[in-house]
């Protein structure tokens, strides 16, 4: 198994009720599969919310395989300024 950390901001935090999740995943789990898991956990509260994925604090535009120790964030529309 691999261990990953999921950072939760804004609408993701609001939907899941936590700032951060620590998860154990099957080796070979991809970013898209983790996103599906997060969306399911949110029980519909993230439907219609576009999420970009950052792995280890960098935007990752394509589906990638996660590694042990990765920090993942599903980034809802940002609102700086």
């Amino acid at each position, binding site marked *: 198994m691999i261990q990953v950390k999921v*950072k939760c*901001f*804004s*609408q993701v*935090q*609001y939907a899941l009720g936590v700032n951060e999740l620590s998860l154990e995943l099957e080796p070979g789990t991809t970013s898209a599969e983790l996103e599906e898991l997060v969306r399911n956990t949110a029980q519909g509260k993230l439907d219609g919310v576009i999420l970009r994925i*950052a792995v280890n*604090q*960098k*935007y990752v535009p394509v589906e990638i395989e996660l590694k042990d120790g990765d920090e993942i*964030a599903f*980034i*809802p*529309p*940002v*609102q*700086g*300024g």
Partner: protein
Amino acid sequence: MVIVEIVSGPITPFPSEDDHQQDGAELVFNGRVRATEHGENIMALEYEQYDGMAETELTQLANETCKKFPIHDLFCKHRIGKVSVGETSLHVVIWSKHRKEGLEAMIWFIIELKKRIPIWKWAILEDGTRIPSECKH
């Protein structure tokens, strides 16, 4: 040159009297918290950042802006945490030879900031409730 700061207290503007003798144009943008958000009265906004990534992305964006436009310096401060109505959340200063490139750089920089810097707003309503702001502009 680029200076980027993410700060948790009130924003002190960058000093205007710097040594920019080849810069005819100094352009300053202050983004302030308005009393209403989506038509609702608010007390304050609370800005949340992705610690580390927000500053990295903002620095990269500032450097990109200086490459894309013929400007000399871009200094930027973004405030994090609770910001009351009327206070500044974003402070950007651009120095350039002429105003045209400074204005274009300012427009582009802020548009990109609002697209990609991992910072979010929570609205603090008059009854104290804290909800993610769904501002789309």
